[in-house]
């Protein structure tokens, strides 16, 4: 059976990985992953992505939490 390529969304601090069908904007991927945009930066390799950036199928993005406590 043919597996269509999807967008891989990695959340390293939560040790979580999601597969979401594309193309989608970053803000839509974050909503799907249940992450609020003001608490993260989103990267693709060495690139930083804006929230309206369109991500294509087959891409892998990292969602990095920026909230520090204590």
């Amino acid at each position, binding site marked *: 059976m043919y597996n269509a390529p999807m967008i891989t969304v990695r959340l390293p*601090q939560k040790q979580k990985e999601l597969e979401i069908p594309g193309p989608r904007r970053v803000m839509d991927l974050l909503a799907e992953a249940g992450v609020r945009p003001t608490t*993260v930066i989103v990267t693709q390799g060495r690139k*930083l992505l804006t929230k309206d*950036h369109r991500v294509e199928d087959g891409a892998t993005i990292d969602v990095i939490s920026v909230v*520090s*406590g204590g």
Partner: protein
Amino acid sequence: MKCKRCRRAEAAVDLPSHHAAFCPDCFFVFFRRQVTEGIRKLRLLSPGDRVLVCVSGGKDSLVLWDVLMDEGYETEGLYIDLGIDGYSGRSKEKVLAYAASRGKTPIVVELAKEGIPIPEAARCVRMQECSVCGTVKRYFFNRVAAEGKFTVVATGHNLDDETARLLGNLLHWQRDHLARQHPLLPGEEGGLVRKVKPLWRVSEVETAAYGFLKAIDYVTEECPMSFDATSLVYKEALSRIEDRMPGTRIVFYKGFLDPSNPLRNEPAGEEEGTGAPQACASCGAPTYAETCSYCRMRERVRNARSLRAARGPR
């Protein structure tokens, strides 16, 4: 989305609170201007200062050190090894690697060697780890600065940290804490060194973006002791508000800092006292009590250890 500054390059950072989006090069200019304006407006630093930058291995403190060095300030880094299994070692590695990349060697204080590693100390005195950590770190920041003839101590507290603290202080009407909350705490006679927070105008997203774009390798995992820190509750509440009403956080904090704000003119609480601090009867550090809070805590840790040793293994 195009960069709102140069209008040519693709934007990499969007900042709804500033109605702006920047390409990496323009974001560096924006970010550094935010920091230098924050320093200038509140007169946090002057060109002749010797700055002790407290670095934890996280994004904010390493970014602060990076910007201050790039701005030409004379700086040294101070890393405090909290003695937290695994996490402290990984944080220290990041600090040492970053420092080496800039030709620096940080000053390192190991709390295990000082007899007060945070997890054990918190157990002994039955207090929240973050609270113990705050007392111990403040003590060493000042001690290292005073011994090393630094004129100022700089920490990486950002706008999110400061507004979370402000919200907590307001919700509990901590009037004496409100009177003391400021990016500039002046030094005092008796060895209390000036403390500054030059990142007070920039958000966590902004420092993280700056660190990423500058390829600063910081520790992204959270301190395992802070998972239930109350500051995270306030941060979440404020970030929900910021999501709906971008720019609220900076308006909230700037309004608080306005000199005409009556909350800023409350007298200091009893613990802080008035006038110059005295020398601690035990270690000589500046304090408003007979013995400083660090020495009192260390004594309680020692007593708890002795008690445990007398009881023997369970």
